[in-house]
C-alpha cells in the first residue's frame, strides 16, 4: 500500500489525526482486562501484515510531520539530543541499522547504496539525498546518531553496556512520556528507573536488566508500554511541563473523546554489533479515546483497565485527577460482555456494543 503522509501538527492547533488505517493498526497495549507491570518481552521478528510489528522500524502516515516536530524541538532545546564521547561508534551502528532496515523494508521510500565506505542515502519522503563516508563524522551535517534519528520516528536511547549494567550515554529524545534525557544522561538502568512505583518491589527491573544484557545480535526484542496524554502532544517532556501540564485541566465531558489520547510506546531492543551497545527505540503512537472505542473490544477493555488500575500507577502515569471523567466516558462503551484474549481488535468476531 502506498503511504500518504499527513500534513499535521502536534502543537498549537493539534491537527494530528489518525486515518481509519492508522486506527486499525494502533498498537492497543492491553492483552487482557487488567494491567500490572510485567517483563512482557517477546522477539521482534515481524508480525501480522500492516501491523506496527511487521517492519523493523515502522514508518506510518505521521512520519513527515513527526520529523518536522522533532526539528522544532531540537531547535528550541539542543540538549534533547546528546551523545557522550565514547558513544560515537554506537551512533554509526545505529545509522547503519536504520538505513539498512528502512532501505530493505521500504525500498520505494528509502535507498542505500554502499560502495565500501562511500555511502549514498536517499530518503524520498524527507527529500534527502546525501553521500558520505561511513565512520567519518566530518562528511555528515550532524553526528551519526543525530543525523539518522532526525529521519526516524520515535525516541532513541543508546545504552552502553559495561559492569553488568546499562548506561544512558546517548540518545535523541523529543517524544517522551515525561522523562528527560538531559537529566538521565550517564545514569545506569536502576538510577533512571528509580521514580517508577511498584515495579522495583516486584523485582521487575532486576529481571528486565538481566534479559536486556543478554540481547544478542540478530535477535531483537520488543514490548509495549503506555500512558495517557491530553491533546496529541509528542513532546510531553519535563522541560516543557509548564506548557502541557496545564492542558490536563482542559478536559470536559464534551471534549474528552477527542482530546484524551491513549499513548502507546512500542519499545524495541537491538544489540549494536560494532560497539556492543544496546539501542532502545521508543516509538510513540497516539489514539484519541473516540477512535479507540470504535473497536468494541478495545472500548470494553480500556474501561475495565482504567477502572481497576492501582492508584499509584494512575498517579505515576499522570491521570489520577482525570480518571473519574475518563470512566464516565468509557463506561458508555462497556456493556459487560466478555472480551477475547490478545491485543488485536478482532472486529469481525467481537460482538458490537450492546446498548
Amino acid at each position: 500500500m502506498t503511504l500518504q503522509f499527513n500534513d499535521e501538527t502536534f502543537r498549537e492547533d493539534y491537527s494530528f489525526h489518525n486515518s481509519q488505517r492508522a486506527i486499525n493498526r494502533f498498537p492497543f497495549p492491553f492483552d487482557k482486562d487488567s494491567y500490572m507491570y510485567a517483563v512482557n518481552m517477546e522477539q521482534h521478528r515481524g508480525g501480522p501484515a500492516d501491523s506496527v510489528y511487521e517492519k523493523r522500524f515502522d514508518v506510518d502516515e505521521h512520519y513527515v510531520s513527526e520529523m518536522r516536530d522533532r526539528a522544532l524541538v531540537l531547535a528550541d532545546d539542543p540538549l534533547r539530543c546528546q551523545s557522550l564521547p565514547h558513544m560515537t561508534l554506537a551512533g554509526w551502528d545505529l545509522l547503519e541499522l536504520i538505513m539498512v532496515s528502512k532501505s530493505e523494508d521500504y525500498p520505494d521510500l528509502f535507498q542505500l547504496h554502499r560502495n565500501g565506505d562511500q555511502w549514498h542515502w536517499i530518503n524520498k519522503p524527507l527529500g534527502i539525498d546525501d553521500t558520505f563516508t561511513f565512520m567519518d563524522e566530518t562528511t555528515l551535517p550532524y553526528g551519526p546518531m543525530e543525523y539518522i534519528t532526525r529521519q526516524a520516528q520515535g525516541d532513541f536511547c543508546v545504552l552502553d553496556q559495561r559492569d553488568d549494567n546499562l548506561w544512558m550515554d546517548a540518545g535523541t529524545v523529543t517524544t517522551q512520556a515525561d522523562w528527560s534525557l538531559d537529566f538521565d544522561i550517564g545514569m545506569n538502568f536502576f538510577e533512571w528507573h528509580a521514580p517508577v512505583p511498584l515495579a522495583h518491589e516486584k523485582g521487575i527491573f532486576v529481571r528486565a536488566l538481566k534479559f536486556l544484557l543478554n540481547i544478542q545480535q540478530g535477535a531483537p526484542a520488543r514490548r509495549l508500554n503506555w500512558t495517557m496524554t491530553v491533546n496529541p502532544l509528542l513532546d510531553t517532556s519535563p522541560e516543557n511541563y509548564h506548557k502541557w501540564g496545564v492542558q490536563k485541566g482542559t478536559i470536559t465531558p464534551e471534549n474528552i473523546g477527542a482530546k484524551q489520547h491513549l499513548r502507546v510506546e512500542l519499545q524495541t531492543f537491538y544489540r549494536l554489533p560494532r560497539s556492543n551497545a544496546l539501542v532502545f527505540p521508543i516509538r510513540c503512537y497516539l489514539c484519541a479515546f473516540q477512535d479507540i472505542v470504535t473497536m468494541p473490544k478495545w472500548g470494553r477493555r480500556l474501561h475495565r483497565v482504567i477502572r481497576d488500575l492501582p492508584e499509584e500507577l494512575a498517579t505515576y502515569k499522570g491521570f489520577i485527577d482525570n480518571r473519574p471523567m475518563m470512566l464516565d466516558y468509557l463506561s458508555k462503551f462497556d456493556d459487560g460482555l466478555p472480551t477475547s484474549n490478545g491485543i488485536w481488535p478482532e472486529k469481525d468476531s467481537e460482538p458490537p456494543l450492546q446498548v
Partner: protein
Amino acid sequence: MSGAEKIAVRVAEVTALNALVTRFRFEPVGGGLLPTFSGGAHTVVEMQDGEVKRLNPYSLMSDPFDQTAYTISVRRDDEGRGGSLFMHENVKVGDEMVISNPVNLFSLDLRARKHLMIAGGIGITPFLAQIKQLDRAHGNWELHYSCRSEALGSYVDYLTATHPNDVNVYYDDQKQAIDLENLLDGQPLGTHIYVCGPKGMINWVRAKADALGWPREAVHYEEFLAPQPGKPFEVKLAVSNKVIQVGEQESLLEAMERVGVDAPYLCRGGACGMCETRVIDYAGNFIHRDHWLEDDEHASGEKIMPCVSRFEGKTLVLDR
C-alpha cells in the same frame, strides 16, 4: 530455541600455527556477508562428534569490520573432553559447520583513555580483534603477551612486525615475566586493564590491581572454561519430568540437550549467566566451576550453572 542466532559457514582455511594451535577461517555458506562484531566477541562452534554434539566457544580474532570471514584459533587440549581435538583432527577445508552469531562478554570500555592488554598463551585471540578495532579508531593501547616459548608464541611475529612499539612479549622458558607491579604503577589515569589467559594469570592481575587500588570497573577479564569430565551422575528434571544420566564426558547442559530439553545457554563457558538453573532438591555435593554465581550462591545449594558445573551424590532435582 536456546543460544544466539546460528550462521551456516564453510571452512575456508585450516592453518597449523605451531604444535598446539591451529587457525580456522569460516566463510558464510552461499556467499553473502557475516555480521560485524565488536572486539572481544566469541562464537559458539557446533561440532557433530559421532553421537555427541559439542558446542564450544572461541574468541573471534579477525578484523571485526571484515564481513567476508571469521577466524578463530584453537589450542588443542589433550586432557579435555575432545572439542579441541575434534577441531584439530576432524575439521577439514570445505566442511560445512554451524556457528553462533557473535556474543561479546569481553568488550572494550570505550571510555578508557588507554587500553592495557595482558595476554597469556591462547588468550591472545580476543586481543587480535580488539587491536584491529582500536587501530581503526586511533585508540591508545599496549599489549603484554606471555608465551611458553618462541615456538609456541602464536602471532608474535605478526604483532611485533605490525606494532613494534606497542607489543611486549615474554617467554616463560627464557625466564621472562611481566613486571606487573611496575607496569600497573606507571599507567596514566583512565587506563583500563584487560586480561585473558589461564586462571592463575587472571587471578594474579586482578589481585595485584586490587592491591594497588585500581577501580574494579577498570579491570576486565575473560576466561572460558571448557567443561571438565567427571564421574557420571543422575539428575531429575522436574519441569520436563525426566530422569537423565550425565555421562563422564558430557556436561550437564549437554545431557539435558541430548534428551530434548531446551535449556537456555549462551557462552557455555560459565561466564554469561544465561543457563543459571534453580535446584529444587539435592543430597550430595556440587562441583561448581563457573564464574557467574557468587561464593554464597555456590554454598547455598540453590543454583547451578549446568554448562560447566557437576554434581556428586545421590539426588539432584532441577527446575527444568
